[in-house]
Each structure stands twice: as structure tokens, then as C-alpha cells.
């Protein structure tokens, strides 16, 4: 089996039903993507599959074959994205455990809507739980990263 992660091809000897999250974390040591619930209910494991956000804890690795997987590590190259800078500047994280998933989901949102409204942000990000409650600042960070007023 071969999958492409962050632009690099990896040939793996794993069962095709192993979840993509387990492959990323345990086989490829890309531990930025988190296991929050294993049930697709929290968003901590979000990665991009050809640019679309998916819950990697539910996805058999075979389903990712032939598609481009992007993880938080892929988004963090070259000092990271404007979005990551905005998360830091707005204090849009506390314990930080959900943050990679938040940034992945927000990256997908900004790729499809350049200047999302608050309602669009809430709709797109509602699948990403932040138990610390950084939500007000996550909203601000996404507005800031998309060049909008953060009053």
C-alpha cells in the first residue's frame, strides 16, 4: 500500500483497514494529528484529503490511497501559515490538544470561502470540539487570518 502524506510517498505494510490516524501517528510518527475520540465526534484527528477535511480516525488507510493527505505537519512548514500565526496572536488555543484539528478545519474553510462570515465559521468549525473553550478566539483568529476586522 502506498499513500502520499504532505507531498511525500510512503510505502506501508499495514492492513488496509487500519485507520489513517493510526498510520499517521504510529507508523509515520506524525503525532501532530490527535486521537480525541476515535469516533468522528471531536475533530481532533482532522486531516485534509485532496484539500477536504476528514476525520482520519474513521477512515481506513486504503481509502486514502491515490489522494493527497495533508496533516498539521504539512501545514507547518516554512514557519507555518497565516492561520497558525493568527491562532497564536489571538490566543485561540489553551491546552492546544485540539488545535491541529482546528487549524486543519479552518484551512479547509478558508480554501473554499476566502472571507467567511461568523455564521459560516460557526457552521464549518462546529465539528471541532475545544474543551478549554477557546472558541471566541478561534473565531477571531479565522477572521484575522482572512483579513477581516476582529473588533
Amino acid at each position, binding site marked *: 500500500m502506498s499513500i502520499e502524506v504532505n507531498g511525500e510517498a510512503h510505502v506501508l505494510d499495514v492492513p488496509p483497514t487500519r485507520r489513517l490516524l493510526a498510520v499517521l501517528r504510529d507508523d509515520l510518527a506524525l503525532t501532530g494529528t490527535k486521537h480525541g475520540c476515535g469516533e468522528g465526534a471531536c475533530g481532533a484527528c482532522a486531516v485534509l484529503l485532496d484539500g477536504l477535511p476528514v476525520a482520519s480516525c474513521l477512515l481506513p488507510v486504503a481509502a486514502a490511497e491515490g489522494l493527497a493527505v495533508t496533516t498539521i505537519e504539512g501545514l507547518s512548514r516554512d514557519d507555518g501559515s497565516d492561520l497558525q500565526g493568527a491562532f497564536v496572536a489571538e490566543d485561540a488555543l489553551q491546552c492546544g490538544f485540539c488545535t491541529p484539528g482546528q487549524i486543519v478545519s479552518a484551512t479547509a474553510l478558508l480554501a473554499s470561502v476566502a472571507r467567511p462570515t461568523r455564521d459560516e465559521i460557526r457552521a464549518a468549525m462546529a465539528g471541532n470540539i475545544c474543551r478549554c473553550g477557546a*472558541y471566541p478566539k478561534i473565531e477571531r483568529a479565522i477572521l484575522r487570518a482572512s483579513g477581516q476586522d476582529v473588533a
Partner: protein
Amino acid sequence: MKPRLVKSQREMEGRFEDVWVLVDEEDEVETWPDDAELGIVGSPTIRQDGPVRASGAARYTVDVQLPGMLHALVLRAPLARCRVTALDVDAARAIAGVRAAIGPDAPLTIEGESPLTAEPAWAGDPIAVVAADTPEAAVAGIAALAATFEPLAPLGLEAGLAEQRFTEEPRENVRGEPDAALEGADVRVELTFETPAHVQSPLEPHAAVARWEGDTLTAWVSTQGMFDARRELARRFALAPEQVRVISEYIGGGFGAKQGAGVEAVIAAELARATGRPVRLALGRHEEQVVGGRRSWTRQTVTLGARRDGTLEAIELAAVVDMGVGGWVFPVAEPALSLYACPNVRTMVFPVRTSLRAQNAFRAPGVVEGVTVLEQAIDDLAAELGIDPLDLRRRNHVDRDQASGLPYSSKRLLDCYDRAAELAGWESRAALREPQPDGLLRGMGCATQIWWGGGGPPAHATVRLDAEARALVTTGIQDIGTGTLTSARMIAAEELGLPLDRVFARGGDTLPNVYSPVSGGSMTTPAVMPAVRSAAGKVRRILLSLAADVLEIGVADLDLSDGRIRSRDGALDVDVVEVTGKLGNATIDGSGARGPNPDGFRVNTFGCQIAQIAVDPGTGVVTVERVVAVHDVGRIVNPLGASSQAEGGVLQGIGYALSEELVVDPTTGYPVNGHLDDYKVPTIADVPEILVDFVNTPDPNLPNLGAKGLGEPPIVPTAAAIANAFAHATGRRASAIPLTPARVLEALA
């Protein structure tokens, strides 16, 4: 004077104990006055570890991977009470990749009670453990155990109350003559109300990785108390503390649930010793939700007696607490005893034993539950008397702790009421009751916050300044997401006169043996930050003394700020590296210890929140539209981090008020919603406008910084304010939270 040991008191979540404190006069620094011109402290500052957390590079306990590491899984009781009738440990050991399987009968090397049992007493009680090369092999090993059970009836709450099946003696606390005062009161109100089991649900579950090297144990533990974990592991494995190193660098939330080593670290270390391999034990999500812990369900009856003018004459509280199999009885009666001036109070707390895990701490344990009910009764009294709810609270304001008779070190609650009312538009509250164009029912409610948060000794810090004028602050802080390491960095930079980027604060490792307390009780800022400042102050004094020698000028004529050493006459202005550069490989070191709090005071935090909500009478859906949170926690070190703490507390309070409730099946005693899709924590779509403000005045009686803790306060009054807004909007009082659509429709029927 030489350093000396002094007997003092330490407070943790309202429990006081005597401790010996190392007092060194050299630790004493002048408290920054209210109007001090501080360059860093008090300015919004981004997290020191923000970039590493935002990049995914932060390594949490669950991310630790070691060569040869095994994966451990626990077999847990699927019923609240049962007997294990069969367990095939040999079959588990025969599974390919399984390296160890331990059942309840196996002799363990650890001291004390085995965490494994053949007679589970609570839902999720550990029965057996398996360690394997891969997670899949561990799952196969657990399946091969082929455990069978004889079910036993779970211990129910109501039966437990009737049978007086308590985890400890019920507590009664009486002040004055409550019976006579209630009898003679002009007005009485009574409210019975239930609060739910509330699950901390940290996104990183409880987890540990253990590795032995000879007789030394290294344990990565997702814990709020790494020094407690070190002590516990040393005791369990009969080691000296220095033979145990606990690393808790990044912790994916705790909220009170992650104390000490936990069963996870004890089992992981036992399995690692048995197999000679490192072992990781991380709870799955369902395990976390069922056995990670919870704020206990309560049913409270509050009776108030008052004069016509609103003066409280009597408070009576009877609280039934579902303890599970044990745990601390948290201070659910504290609000009745201390929130308002009242000469006659009786509180009774009945800790009922049931078949859930022992209750544990969840952000402001006990006080959230107590405030949630008492503050609704206070609103009922206000309605009965026709007095504005905020005015009623102002009339019963108290400036001393009534249990001890001691004055509060500072209390700016009246300022909180005024500011919250202003931000919320309290004066136009009545207009919300008029028919609304969207057909919703609107209301606004308030509630008062009390908590401790004064911190105290012991807490230590060291500061080391090198030749490049970079300062390393070492603490024993485990930063669970509160940003306390960032605060330590700010305090040290301010005191040292260095820019932030020359200062780095570290914690999360017991190896340096620099102690800080558990990250709980709102005590990290008030306990540790004075020690950081004292340590930095010593380094500053040494540095200025060296500068005086190097620059051939009197030390009294020198000042240090922004990384520059200047003479007071302005003639000299050099980079601090001009002095430190001569150190070569030497460093300037300073250590600081937190001194005792002053005698003769109680140190508490206060605040007021006001919630505005909308209720859809057709669907029963409650929407929180705005929460105003104004708190008095003394000096604010980092306004950016403080506002984040407050918002997070409010949001957890909203979950408690509207959607979070662990539901237990009475037949099995097992929770039915132990997952994140059915245990509903707030999402970004549930967030109202949240307006946060602080009194931000240093506590004049708290030396060094005048800062108190902020972890707990913001969750305390939120649910009560929402419940009071509900009563204001609908004219009805529900009988329980969370205010789910079903409960709302029932209340409106």
C-alpha cells in the same frame, strides 16, 4: 537574617492544613504599587508555547513513542457491580504480540492495594490489563480473556439515602439559631433543585508512559500534579523520590480530573517492570468519559428566611451528593456559609455511596453546585420581595469570612456588580419581558461568584542568567493550558528588566526538583509567581552589583530595564550583554520561595456574571445570547490569557447549564452516554457574546504581586445566572439542569 522554618497554613479548595514554610527574607520583594509603570506585566502577551502547540510539534503524553514500547489496555467492569466468574489470562498471554497479561489474582510488585479486582464495585472498575507490541494485539489480548460476569444490583442513590449508606458521616454545620430565625422570618422561600453529573472530558485522555532504566523510573504522565505523581510512584515502587522522574510537559486539558500518578501510571510502570519494555497506557474516549471522573450529581433543598427589606436572616441547606464509591466531599455548602451576610445558617451534606467511580475534582468542585442552587433561591427571594436581584445581593454583602470571623484580604465584589450591570444593560432588563418580535421569551439573570484562590507556600522557582543575557526560569508548573508558564516568563522578564524574548520559562519535569503545587484550586499564579519574582529579583541584584563593578559606578545609580543598563543621570546606557558577556561559562543564579500569606485574613476571589438568554417556547431550546463576566482576582498578570480563562470557564458553565449530563442506567448502574456524540459539550456554534472584565486591582494584603488565581472563578456563577435568566424569561423555575428542551417544555407546561 538566616532562612528559617515557619509554621503556616496552606489552603487547597477550602481545606486548610498546617505546613512548615521556608522563609528567607531575601525572597521578599516590594509589592509593585497599583500605579507602577510595568512594561510587561499587565500587557496582553501571547503564549510562550503558542507556536509549538499550533504547529502540532508539542509532544503530549499520548504522543510519546519509545523504541520497543508496548501498548497497554485495561479490561473494565461493563456493569457497575458484578463478580468475575471466568477470566482466561493464559489465553491472553498466548495471543501473538501479547507480552504481559495480569488479572486480579496475580501478585504485583507494587506496594499497597492492587488496582485490579475480581469484584468490581463501580462502572469501569479495572479487572485485568494486557500489554502488547501493537494496539491491535492488545485488543486481541483483552478479547481472549473471555471474561464472564455475574451481575449484582447496582447501589442506587435513593435507596442509599434511605438506608443511610454514606461514604462518610454526613456533615452538619450550624451557625446561630437557624430554626428560630426561619420561624420568625417575614418571608421564606424554599427551592429543591438537581444538578447533573458533569464530566471533565479533557480531549487528551488520562495517559501515562513508563520506562525503567535499572532502578530509576521515568514516567510521562498527563497529570495536573507531577510532584504528587512522583511521590505516589516512589511509594508504590518503594523508591526514593529522586529515582522517579515525572514529565508532564504538555497536557491536553485536565479541569481537575488528572490528579497524581493515576491508575494509568501505576499500571504502566508495573507492566514496564514486568516486561522490561517501556509501556504506554492511554484511556480510550469511552473509558475517559466513564472512569475519568465527574462533578457529582446533587439534589439540594435551600430554605431562606428574610426580612421585608431583604436582609437575610436564615439559610438552611440540605444537599444529597452522589459520591460514587468515595472521594473528597467537596464544599457544596460553602456558598450557603459564606456568600452572604447571614447570622443563622444550617447546612447538611449527605454523601451517598453509589456504584460510580469515586467523585473527583472538576473546576470549582462543590462550589459550582452550591452556587447554582443557592443563587436561584436568592432570585426567588428577590421575586417574592419585589426587590431587584442585584440590589438584594448588594444588601447582603459581607466583608468577612463568617466561619472564621476573619476579614477578606480584599473584596471588590460591589465593583463587580456595578460593572457587570453596566456591561449587560441591567437597567433595561424589564424590557426583555415584553413580547419579542421573533416570538422568543427573553430574560436576564445574575449570580455571584466566590472561590478561594489565594495560593500559598510551598512553591519554588529558580532563574539562571547566562553570558548572552538569556534567562531560564525553572518552575515545577505543569501548564495544563492555562498559560501559567507564560505568566512566569512575564514576571521574570519584568523583574529582570529583560525583553520577553530573552526569557524562557520551563516546567513540566520533576528532574530539576523545583517544586510547584498541583495545577488546581486556582493557586498556580498566586503560589508560584511570587517565587518566580523573588528568584528574578535576586538575579537582578547580583547583575546590578556586577554592573556597578564593570562600569565603575555606584549600584544605587544604576537602573535596568528593556535589556539595558542605564545610569540614573542618563550618561550611561549600555546593553546588558556588556556586563553578562564577561561571565563566560558562569551564570548568575537565583532561587525564590513563596512566603506565607499574612495572618489575620481569608483570601478569596469574587465576581458577578449576568446572562441573557432566549427561550423558544415551541421547541424548548434555550439560547444563551450574552454572558457578562466580571471578576475580582487581584492583579491581572496577562490580560490576554486571563480573558481566555474566563471565556473557557463561562463556556463550561454553559455546558453544565444547558447540555451536559452523564446519564446512568439504573438497571446496570453504567453510564449510557459515555461518548462525545451523546455527552454534549459546547461547540463553537453554541458560543454567545462573552464580555469579560476584571477589577484588576492588586490585593493590598497579598505580598509580592497581589495576584490571585483565576482557574476556577469564571465557571462558578454561569449556570446560576443562566437558570435565573430562564426564570426571568419564563416566570418558571425548572427543577434541574441541564435545561434541555424536554426539561424546558416540562417547566413551561
